[in-house]
């Protein structure tokens, strides 16, 4: 790319297109120097002016688009009119224009504009690197400085017009060095204070102070939150040694711990404290034996640990406190809050991590981009480098040999998959069934004991079920991993997902069976016993035993594995920390706590303890036994999946079980807060009935009757939600289509750009050293192209140049400049050209208005055609001269002779050339006119293209009826027709899709496509 590549740098449209280039001008690449820089210094200025204008034009275009899209009431005059076409525009004027902008602009526009400008500044910052070649250093530096000052001014204007909060954020998000930011901030502040002194009101000051206060508060809050952050140092250490994917586990653990702390605080303060205040003497009849810590039975049975100990009375210490209601609402509110928190974190995580992720994510970039900057240990860094190298090599070989499996191989893989799924399902079902029967057996055993304290051995027997459950949870996943090793997976991710799905399946079924047993058998067993407390105890045991097994798991899974790997089988090496398995364990434990919250409100305290110990245990085990994971990346996605899993089967399962218990099951008659009621939910009914008496509470009753108890309400809500969901679904589909189109457009623009650059380069090199006229042409063809989006115009002008060249050759063919008729024709052509130029100038001035540019363009085309027509006429007039020798002066006769001679000489070759030219021209025009007129009437354009071709043919026939030429012309005609037809078919379907974009871009695209087809050899 020669001198023209640098022009792109100053062409705003070039920059603001999605495929912008950073700095085509920088000097490390020799071809980027600009030979014109020294020749015509003024043009830099001219370009600058043009650039700015283009930027304005672009903003205007955007605004107009926006308003055209259905907001016609917003005045499009918001954008400033383009600057007059002069090299250095008056900055004062520019400022004024800026200030005149109405304040009521669309916010999205503001931000778009802003980011564009900021990006622009960043770009130019980048271009300031002092490597520019010495030849144009002065000029470019001046130009750039000029430009940067302009940009900074504009930026300042934008910043000043923002609110303080936005301003702070915007400045903070500038990609500049600290000092530059500080300078801008100080300027903005100074400007602001000046403005304030002009329009000083107490209100402005007040709002200023308030916003300042809130900002300070915000900073303090952030600082405080960070100060409270748990395990900051440990987290950093783990992240530094093992990378962010292992850190995910610990973050998750911490997050769950916070959930539990919250739940403990809520339950303790709203349920337990009032009870203790009311009746501090809840003592157990059974003495403490130690085993209770494991079983949760015995001594604990009648403490505040479980549901059974809570009272159903109303406290009357000054204020009334209904314990029943407190119990119900505390748990309900906690569950709802948990749900909301989960949904929010899930949604934000999805938004961040899944929106734009391509399925083929093993690409090299992703590996390179996920390098962990937080890793600090030297050993880990080398290890990561090795891993990354292996992965890169793998990705290369995968790409190289996209292995195609034969049918038997496929069948084999399918068979293995099928078998392993069958076996794992069978295992899961077997486990669930055995747990169920075990539970039933145990139930029978318990019922034989009778009332009173159980013996130590009996109490120990209760540990059988949780032991079995935890054992299964520990052992069965090992089998699953074994299957996983046997199976063949096309990629690593599906392997992990399969493993996760199977494990989730196992845990879900075990928990499901347990819940079924509790709901259907324990709850109906005996009215005398407090079944809720028994379920609570069972859950307590599960939580505790699970804790021990997790410790065992890290002992066997990590410590022993490490010993084996490092001492016995050196080949194995130390184990990796299995994030997926460990996180699933956490999810399972948390589900137990959620289910248990109704039956044992203080279970979260146990959970807190458990997670706390687990954190340190895992940390020690990790740092002592494990090595960093071999596979990097995917950490963010895995985290999203875990949160989703936590929400979907597990939290939803827990909440439905709690809901079912409180809505449909009979509470125990002799214990707990809901004794004597049919369902726990009746508490609310009774309360509402009680409210009837109180005056002024009618609304609560009304809400209860018409909203909470009404099916119609839920029916309507469901309908509305379904409708909204459908609409959003459709929106998403629309967006997807739009994204596809935009991607296509990016690609097209890229092609377009490279094509145009090539074209210009070719033209430049093929054209002989020009005379003054042509250099003027060069100018006139340059400047519109600076006008941002007038590439089509430039194209038209290029074609026109070509036509002129042709014209020149034509006159060369006649070869007698003194010939009156020829020169008059030439003059006429010149006039036409001038007119066309004037028209293009007009067009240049109206460049921000797409329709007018079209008319201008078509005018130019018309002028050209007229010029051609006149040339033809002159031809025929020449013939007249030939027939009528009386009017011939000496010059004329000379001319005629020359012409004859020329015709004789040029018999074959020149005619051939002309016809060739005509053909090219016709082809080009067919393409060009198509795009130009496309919006108005495609049919016209295709027909005109054909007509053009016909004209060319006619002309050729007139001049030299040679058969070979005829054939060529026929071919040309056919080709033109073909092209017209093809484009018609091809471009038509895209028309409605791009409706929102500006007309010019569409034309560009169509032209591009036509050109592509042309290149592809249609």
């Amino acid at each position, binding site marked *: 790319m020669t001198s023209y590549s640098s022009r792109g740098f100053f062409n705003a449209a070039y920059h603001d297109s999605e495929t912008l280039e950073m700095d085509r001008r920088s000097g490390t690449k020799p071809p980027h120097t600009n030979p014109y820089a020294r020749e015509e210094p003024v043009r830099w200025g001219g370009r600058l002016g043009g650039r700015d204008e283009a930027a304005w034009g672009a903003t205007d275009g955007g605004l107009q688009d926006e308003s055209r899209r259905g907001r016609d009431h917003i005045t499009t005059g918001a954008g400033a009119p383009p600057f007059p076409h002069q090299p250095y525009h008056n900055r004062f004027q520019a400022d004024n224009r800026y200030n005149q902008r109405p304040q009521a602009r669309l916010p999205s526009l503001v931000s778009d504009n802003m980011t564009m400008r900021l990006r622009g500044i960043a770009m130019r910052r980048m271009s300031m690197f002092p490597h520019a070649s010495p030849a144009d250093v002065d000029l470019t530096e001046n130009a750039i400085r000029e430009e940067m000052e302009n940009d900074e001014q504009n930026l300042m204007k934008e910043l000043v017009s923002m609110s303080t909060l936005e301003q702070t954020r915007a400045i903070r998000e500038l990609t500049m060095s600290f000092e530059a930011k500080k300078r801008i901030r100080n300027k903005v502040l100074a400007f602001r204070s000046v403005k304030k002194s002009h329009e000083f009101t107490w209100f402005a000051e007040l709002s200023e102070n308030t916003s300042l206060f809130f900002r300070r508060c915000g900073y303090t809050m952030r600082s405080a939150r960070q100060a409270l952050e748990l395990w900051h140092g440990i987290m950093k250490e783990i992240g530094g040694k093992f990378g962010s994917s292992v850190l995910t586990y610990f973050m998750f653990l911490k997050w769950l711990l916070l959930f539990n702390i919250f739940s403990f605080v809520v339950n303790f303060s709203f349920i337990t404290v009032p009870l203790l205040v009311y009746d501090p003497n809840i003592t157990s009849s059974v003495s403490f034996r130690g085993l209770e810590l494991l079983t949760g039975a015995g001594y604990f049975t009648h403490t505040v640990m479980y549901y059974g100990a809570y009272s159903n009375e109303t406290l009357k210490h000054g204020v009334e406190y209904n314990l029943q209601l407190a119990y119900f609402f505390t748990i309900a509110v906690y569950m709802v809050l948990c749900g909301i928190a989960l949904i929010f974190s899930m949604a934000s995580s999805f938004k961040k991590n899944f929106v734009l992720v391509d399925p083929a994510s093993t690409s090299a970039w992703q590996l390179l981009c996920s390098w962990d900057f937080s890793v600090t240990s030297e050993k880990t860094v080398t290890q990561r480098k090795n891993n990354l190298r292996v992965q890169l090599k793998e990705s290369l070989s995968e790409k190289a040999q996209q292995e195609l499996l034969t049918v038997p191989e496929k069948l084999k893989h399918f068979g293995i998959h099928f078998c392993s799924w069958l076996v794992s399902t069978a295992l899961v079902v077997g486990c669930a069934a055995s747990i169920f029967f075990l539970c039933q057996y145990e139930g029978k055993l318990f019922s034989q004991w009778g009332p009173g304290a159980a013996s130590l051995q009996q109490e120990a027997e209760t540990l059988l079920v949780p032991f079995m459950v935890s054992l299964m949870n520990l052992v069965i996943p090992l089998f699953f991993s074994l299957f996983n090793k046997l199976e063949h997976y096309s990629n690593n991710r599906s392997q992990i997902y399969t493993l996760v799905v199977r494990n989730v399946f196992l845990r879900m079924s075990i928990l499901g069976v347990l819940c079924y047993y509790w709901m259907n058998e324990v709850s109906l067993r005996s009215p005398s016993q407090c079944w809720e407390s028994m379920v609570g105890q069972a859950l307590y045991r599960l939580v505790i035993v699970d804790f021990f097994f997790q410790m065992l798991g890290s002992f066997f899974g990590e410590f022993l594995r490490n010993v084996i790997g490092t001492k016995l089988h050196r080949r194995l090496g130390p184990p990796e920390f299995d994030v997926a398995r460990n996180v699933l364990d956490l999810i399972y434990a948390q589900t137990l706590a959620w289910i248990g919250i109704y039956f044992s409100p203080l279970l979260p305290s146990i959970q807190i303890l458990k997670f706390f110990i687990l954190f340190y245990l895992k940390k020690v085990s990790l740092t002592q036994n494990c090595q960093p994971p071999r596979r990097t*990346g995917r950490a963010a996605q895995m985290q999203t999946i875990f949160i989703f899993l936590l929400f979907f089967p597990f939290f939803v399962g827990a909440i439905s079980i709690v809901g079912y218990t409180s809505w449909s099951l009979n509470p125990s008659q002799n214990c707990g807060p809901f004794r004597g009621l049919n369902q726990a939910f009746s508490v609310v009914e009774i309360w509402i009935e009680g409210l009837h008496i109180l005056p002024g509470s009618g609304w609560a009753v009304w809400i209860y009757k018409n909203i909470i108890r009404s099916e119609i309400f839920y029916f309507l809500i469901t309908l509305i939600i379904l409708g909204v969901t459908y609409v959003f679904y459709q929106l998403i589909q629309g967006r997807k289509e739009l994204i596809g189109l935009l991607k296509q457009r990016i690609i097209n623009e890229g092609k377009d750009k490279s094509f145009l650059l090539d074209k210009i380069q070719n033209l430049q090199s093929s054209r002989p050293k020009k005379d003054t006229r042509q250099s003027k042409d060069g100018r006139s063809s340059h400047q519109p192209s600076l006008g941002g989006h007038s590439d089509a115009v430039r194209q038209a002008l290029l074609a026109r140049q070509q036509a002129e060249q042709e014209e020149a050759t034509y006159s060369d063919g006649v070869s007698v400049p003194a010939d009156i008729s020829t020169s008059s024709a030439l003059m006429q052509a010149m006039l036409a050209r001038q007119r066309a130029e004037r028209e293009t100038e007009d067009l240049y001035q109206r460049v921000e208005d797409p329709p007018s540019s079209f008319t201008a363009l078509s005018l130019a085309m018309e002028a050209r055609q007229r010029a051609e027509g006149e040339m033809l006429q002159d031809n025929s007039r020449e013939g007249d001269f030939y027939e009528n020798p009386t009017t011939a002066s000496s010059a004329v006769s000379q001319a005629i002779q020359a012409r004859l001679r020329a015709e004789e000489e040029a018999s074959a070759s020149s005619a051939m050339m002309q016809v060739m030219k005509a053909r090219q021209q016709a082809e080009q025009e067919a393409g060009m006119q198509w795009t130009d007129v496309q919006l108005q009437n495609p049919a016209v354009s295709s027909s005109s293209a054909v007509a053009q071709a016909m004209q060319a043919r006619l002309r050729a026939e007139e001049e030299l009826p040679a058969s070979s030429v005829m054939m060529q012309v026929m071919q040309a005609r056919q080709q033109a027709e073909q092209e017209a037809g093809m484009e018609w078919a091809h471009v038509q379907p895209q028309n409605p899709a791009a409706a929102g974009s500006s007309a010019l871009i569409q034309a560009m695209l169509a032209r591009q496509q036509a050109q592509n087809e042309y290149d592809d050899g249609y």
Partner: protein
Amino acid sequence: MGATASQLDKGMLSEYQELTFLTKQEILLAHKRFSELVPKEEIDRINCRIPMSLILTLPELKSNPFNERICKVFSTSDIKDGSLSFDDFLDLLSAFSDSATLEIKSHYAFRIFDFDDDGTLGRHDLEKLVNCLTGGTDDTNLTPDEMRQLIDNILEESDIDKDGTVNLSEFQHVISRSPDFVSSFKIVL
């Protein structure tokens, strides 16, 4: 202004808070760590710069394969020696902090990866980048053939306008598709 004299005054602190993504504690911690690096004889000088060699003794940067690039990118020194003033240091930490936006992070990542500072990632830059990330010694590096293929793949994937280099917007496009970037482009003091 970046005074490294023993204490940060309150006005400066709030200015730092406003212009960076860091919290008060982080700024104070950064200040402490920075002051520890300042040579004794310069401790009272306003706006002193710490040479790159000293900065690289920080454990957070010591083993980072890009440590020198990071210093050079964030340095505002006139002679491009990678030395950092306190302002530059805060800038660095701000860009690598949790709350920095994707745009800022990708911008700086681009500049860090742009080894020859020419504003685009050419083949040479990409080669250096891969070498930086896959090992130092010669025998562990990728073979030239593999390297060529890898870079071809990279360019094919990301070079939308087919000019043979990856520019900032193309790079940001790539980044937007790899969600791990934000969580891994992070340095905690």
